[in-house]
């Protein structure tokens, strides 16, 4: 779950990391009193690249009134209409750094990333002068060490590492406590009032929701309040289904990410276009199979449905049950191609036979058939 900047900053504040004073306004909430400059107006969107898209306005003199705000509320940043704006005090910036914590997945280690040149161009810095980027592995059992902080302080050119140590240690506590996938401060600014987080990018690990129910739900509810006039969130929640809408006409359901992507590739190689990517996970129930069909069939562009099942932990009898029940309840407005094999495949295939749904054994054959039924080339 990506958080809005203002949500991330609230967590920073909770952990004693300094942020500028600020207030959030939503589109439906008028600015009752005008505010005195200097202020920074920041569009609250979940997309990146906001600064370069004009989503940040600095007002150095005069007052901030409804008109100034409306200038942001009318913006759309990377398909995301601006629904909230954060108005903050302007910091007196002496220097900008980059600081984040995330994971290096294949090394299975938390990593602290730091760069003495923070700000909007950090990715360019990373690309052009990679030696400027410190990647410091953190031991999850012990957290950041003082010497690691001193290493960064030296790179940043800070005389004392004390304030930085506080920020890094508190950021680590927050990263761990909320089970974030990412906490990013860019820029971390050296201001006349000390080190301050001028931006906040926080992503929480949705898998950890069971342990932080109240906190995660509150953050989610707040986001839904803000986004209510915006687009519907396209991904599903609460089960293992991954759904990504695409532009084509072949509806696709698989019981594994790898075979799902392989099928996507094979559809394309066969001259077709997938309407979506929908993967159910490797251990699911008839209900999940049923639900996956609901999700995919809701797309009216679909001309054929391709279901690719190869069961390890998944049982083909369970999958057959989900498919047959869906067809009973809703019928099928497009032809369906099912490839079914693996655990309990005899039982599953027998059920399908009795329900008069043909099954395929070979993946390529199934793909070509589905593409052809959708009017593609194969």
């Amino acid at each position, binding site marked *: 779950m990506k958080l809005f900047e203002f949500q991330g900053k609230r967590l920073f504040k909770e952990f004693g990391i300094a942020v500028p004073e600020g207030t959030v306004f939503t589109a439906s909430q008028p600015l009752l009193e005008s505010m005195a400059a200097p202020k920074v107006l920041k569009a609250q969107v979940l997309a990146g690249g906001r600064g370069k898209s004009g989503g940040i306005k600095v007002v150095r003199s005069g007052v901030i009134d409804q008109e100034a705000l409306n200038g942001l509320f009318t913006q759309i940043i990377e398909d995301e209409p601006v629904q909230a704006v954060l108005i903050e005090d302007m910091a007196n910036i002496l220097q900008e750094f980059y600081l*984040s914590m995330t994971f290096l*997945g*294949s090394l*299975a280690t938390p990593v602290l990333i730091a760069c003495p040149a923070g700000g909007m161009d950090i990715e360019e810095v990373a690309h052009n002068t990679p030696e400027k980027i410190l990647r410091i592995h953190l031991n999850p059992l012990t957290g950041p060490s003082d010497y690691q902080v001193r290493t960064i302080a030296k790179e940043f050119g800070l005389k004392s590492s004390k304030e930085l140590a506080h920020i890094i240690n508190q950021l680590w506590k927050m990263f761990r406590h909320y089970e974030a996938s990412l906490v990013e401060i860019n820029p971390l600014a050296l201001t006349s009032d000390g080190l301050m987080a001028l931006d906040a990018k926080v992503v929480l690990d949705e898998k950890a929701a069971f342990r932080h129910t109240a906190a995660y739900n509150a953050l989610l509810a707040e986001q839904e309040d803000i986004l209510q006039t915006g687009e519907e969130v396209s991904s599903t929640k609460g089960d293992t289904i991954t759904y990504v809408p695409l532009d084509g006409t072949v509806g696709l359901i698989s019981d594994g990410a*790898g*075979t799902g992507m392989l099928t996507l*590739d094979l559809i394309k190689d066969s001259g077709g276009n997938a309407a979506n990517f929908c993967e159910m996970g490797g251990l699911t129930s008839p209900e999940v199979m049923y639900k996956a069909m609901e999700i995919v069939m809701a797309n009216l562009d679909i001309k054929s449905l391709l279901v690719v099942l190869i069961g390890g932990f998944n049982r083909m009898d369970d999958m057959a049950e989900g498919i047959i029940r869906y067809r009973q309840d809703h019928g099928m407005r497009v032809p369906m191609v099912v490839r079914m094999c693996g655990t309990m495949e005899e039982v599953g295939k027998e059920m399908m036979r009795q329900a008069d749904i043909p099954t395929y054994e070979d993946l390529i054959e199934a793909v070509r058939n589905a593409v052809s039924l959708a009017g593609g080339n194969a």
Partner: protein
Amino acid sequence: MAILINENTQILIQGITGKSGALQAKVMKQYGTKVVAGVTPGRGGQEVEGVPVYDLVSEAVRAHRIDAAISFVPAVFAKDSCMEIFDVGIKFLVLTTEGITDHDMVDIVAYARTKGARILGPGTAGLISPGKSKAGAHPPRMYTEGRVGVISKSGALSYEVGKNLTEAGIGQSTVLSVGGGPVWGMTQKDVVELFQADPETEIIVLLGEIGGTMEEEAAEYITNHLNKPVVTMIVGRAAPVGKSLGHAGAIIEGNKGTAAAKLELLQKAGARIASSPREIIQIIKEMRGE
């Protein structure tokens, strides 16, 4: 030989009384896997498929020699149950559990390292050494004994390729999936290293996906250390480019992560590139001069 498990490996099932644990206990035993003990707290004294169940792993290791464990414990209890495995000195754990939080997972891997133990997973379908033993979900009939080692990230993809190989008469030494991440125990590189040391494995099939940098790391190892032929297929060539999280993802991945980048590095490393399971078969047949 084969890697990680063979006909002599004595296996403990954590969470054996659950639905998935009990079913796999049955399938694994039928296949010939030496399933010698199961553990579920509060169920000590029961039996599942003729396998004695204990409350504690320490009780199981007092009664049996245990070489490896496979876990079906729910994500909520995963961290504790993994530590229980490593603390008694078991050095290989197949962690099938999905949904373990990333923070728990880095703790688990860090802890395993302190004990010199290996984890396959999380969210892995496990592994099969055909004709010898299996620990996990691989459907037995899709595999046959032989000399091709298969490494996959995704479980289903390792079934798909195994099925194709077997249907084409090409046997396998060991087939395994490392799981979907985002935080892993064993990586593709770690497994390539094991296949390199396994005299029974002649050809390695490396199945990758877009995203992450695991295939790139495997490519580096292949370039510098491997002297066995590799066939690779990276799926997701047709998938839309994903968005990275914040700048950190972009900084870490740099230019890596795309199918093109992975394929380029693997090709430079000397691997042959396939774009479908059928092509994998063709390439292996060519390599064998068939």
